[in-house]
């Protein structure tokens, strides 16, 4: 198993948001978590990545058998977990190239691989950027500073492509993307597909799942998995909305 979540509960500012989530992603599979606004989708991604202020009140989460909830965020990343942010953070004054190289070298160091110097890094980065339709200019700017919504998301996928995680959590990566950018992002994820790569794709809409076809779909309602199914569940949600499932779950 890649990711195992059992009865996970979490609160923000004392307010319960996750109320006992249980799901498991076998290695090599891509699972989607869909849900309406306020169902706890982003909270789930932040809890798994280890953001401050998200208090785990019960349950467990393991990645490849390790208790990730006990790890610092950088340890989770080093273990192979990657969160693609819904709202990628701007870092004015930190050049994107320096940022990407620092992150890549931190991960490489952890894997016992030699660090890349600026030239070696540039070669690797340019290769990945070409497939993502990104220009060198985006390496020179501050991280995400002055990037359009689509450029920010592509920069997230670039980071994922460089860091080669074994578990990617994509938090509404489709939001704010036009169809071309959506395809580029989906191609970036699909390129990583393989027996050693799993993903949790969090989304409000079914649209992304046309391009990243999931093995399983889970519906999140009020901080719980209300129902799970195959890719056809996403189609059904698209047609019927969340109301039917909300009624069934009630």
């Amino acid at each position, binding site marked *: 198993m890649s990711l195992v979540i059992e009865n996970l509960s979490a609160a923000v500012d004392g307010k319960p948001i996750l109320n006992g989530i249980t799901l498991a992603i076998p290695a090599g599979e891509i699972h989607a978590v869909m849900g309406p606004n306020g169902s706890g989708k982003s909270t789930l991604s932040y809890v798994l990545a280890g953001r401050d202020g998200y208090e785990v009140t019960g349950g467990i989460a393991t990645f490849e058998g390790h208790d990730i909830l006990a790890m610092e965020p*950088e340890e989770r990343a080093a273990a192979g977990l990657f969160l693609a942010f819904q709202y990628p953070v701007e870092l004015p004054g930190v050049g994107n190239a320096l940022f990407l190289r*620092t*992150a890549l070298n931190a991960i490489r160091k952890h894997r016992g691989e030699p660090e890349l110097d600026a030239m070696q890094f540039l070669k690797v980065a340019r290769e990945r950027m070409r497939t993502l339709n990104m220009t060198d200019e985006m390496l020179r700017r501050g991280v995400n500073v002055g990037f359009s919504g689509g450029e920010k998301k592509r920069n997230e996928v670039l980071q994922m492509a460089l860091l080669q995680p074994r578990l990617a959590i994509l938090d509404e990566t489709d939001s704010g993307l036009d169809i071309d950018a959506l395809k580029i992002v989906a191609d970036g994820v699909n390129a990583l597909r393989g027996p050693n790569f799993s993903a949790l794709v969090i989304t409000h809409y079914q649209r992304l799942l046309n391009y990243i076809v999931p093995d399983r779909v889970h519906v999140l309602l009020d901080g719980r998995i209300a129902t799970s199914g195959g890719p056809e569940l996403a189609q059904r949600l698209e047609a019927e909305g969340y109301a039917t499932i909300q009624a069934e779950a009630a």
Partner: protein
Amino acid sequence: MTAVRHTGAEGFLQRFEGLRARLPGRRLPWLEALREDAARAFRAQGLPTRRVEAWKYTDLRPLGEAGFEEALSSIDGGQALPAAHGGGARAVLVDGRFRADLSALDGLPYAAGSVAAALPGLEGRIGAVAPAAALPMVALNAMLFEDGLLLTVPAGVPGGVLDLLSLASGGARPEAFHPRHLIRLEAGASLTLIETAMGPEHDGTTLHNPIYEIEVAEGATLVHARLQQEGRQGFHLSAVHARVAAGGTYDNFTLVAGARLTRNEIHIALTGPGASAHMNGAQLLAGGQHADTTTYLDHAAPGCASRQTYKTVLAGRSRGVFQGKILVRQAAQKTDGYQMNQALLLSPDAEMNSKPQLEIYADDVKCSHGATVGEIDHGQLFYLRSRGVPEAQARSLLIQAFLQEAVEGVTDETARAALGAAVSGWWEREALA
């Protein structure tokens, strides 16, 4: 005005009485009169107390209590000096005294040397830009200065890069020195002056009280970077007084990384149309350090531009101060003034005081200022950590990014590189320690 009584001033005045018969230029009547005036002014004003508005946030009492004596230069030619930033041209002062034996000034296209050696010809030049009686720190310097850097770049000459190394040798007892630097760029001349102030190597108490009188003539450009990395028991009280004529540029960057207590005053007057001033700085403070940057920008002519970006990083129990005043006189139409000062608090015990001030008498001007005090952004820190960057390294990146804007404001590449290196050096020593 009632005289301010302060025991701190007494010590300095006594030193003046004891030294005056031996100070350089003692037989020059104009200089003796200048020192007398300064002593009178200093006696009347005393060391400023926090009741004086301009000194509200900086307490000089520890200075008055230290009991300074004159410095005994003890650095000889055998000592290794820090590497130069420029092409090798170097002026060295030890304890405020020009040292020809340590300097490398041969073959330069301009004149650089000792103020003390040239005193008979300096009547009217000393005190021309920084009037002796105007400010207590200038008065203190005028009473007691022995030497300084005298530098004149002739019209149209590109002077390249000059390193100015200011070393404190330090002694068993608190030592004070008060160099007076006279820097003049004639029309169309240019120079990059990179000053490094350091020492003493042991924990001796020192007071470094340099005054700069700077004249930038029509169309001339002076880049002046000051890197202050003095010892932990140092007091650093400086004042830069600069006058910039039409079309001239004065670009000042001041890095404060050393000393226990620092006050840097920068007084710039833009006196001719189209003159510009860049004033950037970074204060990197830890432990119990206190640093105060106080700027006065006088827009006296039309069409001038000024840019100020000051950044302060505060760790430990440190205290930072920024006071910045922009005066736009009635004649100074089409003034473009900008001032920003930002502080990053790394510790709950650190404190920043800032006081921006605009005084505008012209009606067609663009003037803006801003001040922020904040902590490291948690969202940014988490973003970096979620990419595998360890917390300490992530903080380091964010602090350097915070300082970046001020360093980028420096127009000269050599100066910018020297500053960048000094900033990362500080971080590696202090914050990662």
